[in-house]
């Protein structure tokens, strides 16, 4: 009996030391610890996405939550993945820039296509964060005004000043949404 109780405690402890979450439709489960292949309690989500899962579309610029380059969608909201610890993500559903494409058809998200059509980038480093932030915002607010779009993107740093073309790209998707009665 004693042995089985110990087993159970060990099993539960091990359970507690696990973190599992879904990224772009795929479930990932990790042990928490300091060994190779484990998630360190100090790892940020951006680190795990980039270094462990190889999803380097999420960019890290300031690593201090000020620039928006590392934005991903978590349970429907845009979050700064450099400010989220991976161990906080248990049970969450995450979409990164790689996950915006239609997984079946490979079709680009309308925002991605619109960014291409409006050349809404220059160096492109901030672009994944911009698109992801805009996608989360439009999901919640499908018919925003231009001012609301600007406000939603005000945490995204772009040094090339692609802002004007980004606004055109986002507003174009908003207007097409209207046309399609979405």
């Amino acid at each position, binding site marked *: 009996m004693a042995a089985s109780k110990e087993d159970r405690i060990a099993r539960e402890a091990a359970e507690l030391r696990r973190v599992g979450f879904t990224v772009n439709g795929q479930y990932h489960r990790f042990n928490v610890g300091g060994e190779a292949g484990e998630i*360190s309690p*100090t790892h940020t989500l951006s680190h795990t996405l*980039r270094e462990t899962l*190889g*999803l*380097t*579309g*999420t*960019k*890290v*610029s*300031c*690593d*201090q939550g*000020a*620039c928006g*380059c590392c934005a991903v969608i978590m349970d429907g909201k845009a979050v700064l993945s450099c400010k989220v610890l991976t161990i906080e993500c248990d049970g969450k559903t995450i979409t*990164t*820039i*790689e996950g*915006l*494409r239609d997984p079946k058809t490979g079709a*680009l998200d309308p925002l*991605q*296509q619109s*960014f*291409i*059509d*409006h*050349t809404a*980038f*220059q*160096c*492109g*480093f*901030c*672009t*994944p964060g911009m*698109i992801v932030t805009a996608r989360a915002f439009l999901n919640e607010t499908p018919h925003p005004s231009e001012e609301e*779009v*600007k*406000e939603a*993107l*005000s*945490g*995204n*740093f*772009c*040094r*090339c*000043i*692609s*802002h*004007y*073309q*980004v*606004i055109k790209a986002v507003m174009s998707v908003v207007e097409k949404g209207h046309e399609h009665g979405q």
Partner: protein
Amino acid sequence: MGNKYRYIGKPMPRRDAEEIVTGAVQYLDDLKFQNLLHGKVLRSPYAHALIKKIDKSKAEVLPGVKAVLTWEDIPDWRGGTPRKVPVLDKKVRYVGDAVALVAATTEEIAEEALDLIEVDYKVLPAALDMDSALKPGAPLVYDEFPGNIIPGGTIVFGPNCLKGVVRGDVDKGFAEADVIAEGAFGYENIPNALPPESVGAVALWEEPNKVTVWSTSQAPYMDKITLFHVFNRQVEVRSIGNHVGGSFGTKIMCWQVQAYAVLLSRATGRPVKCMFTKEEHMAAFTLRVGSRIHARVGMKKDGTLTAIQGTWYVDTGYYSFTTQAQVAVGSGELMIMAQCPNWDLKNLVVATNRNASGSTRGFGGQELKCSFIPLLCLAMGKAGLDPFEVLKKNFVKPGGGYFWRDGNWYQYRGIDYSRAMDKGAEQFGWKEKWKGWLTPTSVNGAKRTGIGVGVHGNADVGEDAAEAYVQLDYNGTATIFLCAAEHGTGQKSNYAKMVAEVLQIPPDRISMTPADSLVTPFEFGPVGSRGTYAIGSAVINAAEDAKRKLFEFAAPKLDADLQDLETADGVVFVKGHPEKSLKWRALGNDRTILGFGRFEPDFTLCNCMMSFVEVEVDTETGKVTLLRVVLATDVGQIIDPQGLEGQLNGCIGSAGIDSAIFEETIINPSSGHILNANLIDYKWRTFAELPAMEHVVLETPIPTHRFHAVGVGEVATSPGPSAVLMAVSNAVGSWLHEYPVTPQRVLKALGKMGNAATGGTR
């Protein structure tokens, strides 16, 4: 405009567009390497100190640490101009200077190892600004440079590198002047160009003396050359370029971080990556040079300049690599803007105990002009002249001339930009809005609006040699061999467009090699707006050469003369007889055609950008709001309309216009620490506060380019800051001469700071 081209000037998605919007583009930090180690730098907490002793024993035994290097462990490798700056030294010269390097299996272990290195410093008095550095008996940043004056000139620009402008007779010029203005003016707040991607490098050393470097550089081929010299001309360097996450000129010189990675790879035999954190990027990488002039200017009542005399003081920080080049180019740029017969403008490059200065969009000219135009404003104010008219009048015209960086005189053979300036003024409504000096355009309660104008142009467009190959294949495709890293301007797409136009095949049939110095010929790098004219010409020449060789192959088979042949869509045919044709396929599987193209420097051409700005000043709070920007230019021929629009919009970012409103690097004046080395405390413009932005772009064909175009990307920022200073001065009715125009400075100009300083008592 009757655009006769098939591809040039037509909007087209960028070649890397889909990769960018899907996150597939790989910047340096995204590349994967087997057995990669991570490099970190231990940095000095003192602005000036001698390293008495370093104990690295605890760091070396930390599991995972593979190398710890100090100045005692490395070869005497040096950079800088002159080449006097050791990669690691026994002396530190600014807060953040490198003291030791660590390579470890993870970043965390490398960081932990930094904490275990014990350094015993002897702290020295520091010269933190130009005033302190120039005082008699000031602490010397380098023993080799007495008085903290760094010698002018750079060998790269030849033996007569421009070190100042002396021409005509300034005494005579001042005697002829109707007004003379004099004073000291500066652009010293060293705003940070701050691309989102930090700087970094990965190096892989191979025995005995070979190294491959991947880095964030915008000029990969030049890295091979720079590092060859830094490494005592004993190491064979292969340089590979990647997508660059913004540069704004700052990433043409990544020699230090590259050297760290190379040294650590040399010590470990494994690939080592050194990426600067954002804090290091902001506090330990290069900044814009600090600029101050003590000068006077003479002017006639009609706006004709008669004399310019004075000294340009340039704060280069603890070392210089490009500063002398910036001084040479900046001096030439002032001559382009201020056509004046009599000059005596000296300059002094001053070393101080702050981080190094480096290349930044505007490259000397922006810094000098932001200091000079406020002086010019005083003269124009005294003479009661409209600044738009004076700037237009004094900008170089065909037949005019200037000294350029090599010290030679060049007669300008480009177009007259007056038409673009007039169109810009018209679009902006300058004549209606201009109410005279120190007079607001409108007053609405506490809010006042004011306008300003600035101008800039450079002859960088034709700077430095460029080389490219274009290879034709039997299947009707072409490959461009070019050492160009895409840093945001979309130029790689434009080169494909230019080759497509020459060969008359769709751009998607043209591929491009990666930037790899082992594979591609020499290329200087996309700087100074030279991408369109200089690099573009090399690529075009290579395509023309390939086409000529194709015709040489086809002519005997078609029984035609070379000059009678033309090609389109992978078919060579006789002009007027399309039935007499030969597919490129006739080349056969076992043959390719390789064309070579080279561009030789040409300083007889310059570009031009005029900025008009309107600001609103809240006289209660001192807040300055940028309401509207109109940029006016002539590009000869638009290559890519959307890319051009993007580059022009960039005028407010990358240490441009906003360096006059809120952007600045703030240094603790007593310790030398940078206080805002993070993206929260460094103020940048957000989406919520975008000004109205308008571009007036004319297309007057430039005679010297195959497609009549000239680059304008770099110069978009340069005229803006001084225009803002002018606009705010006009709005508040009092001269402001310091950048940026913070609320504090505005309220001081309005005579309202007394209240704030004394807690509201009167």
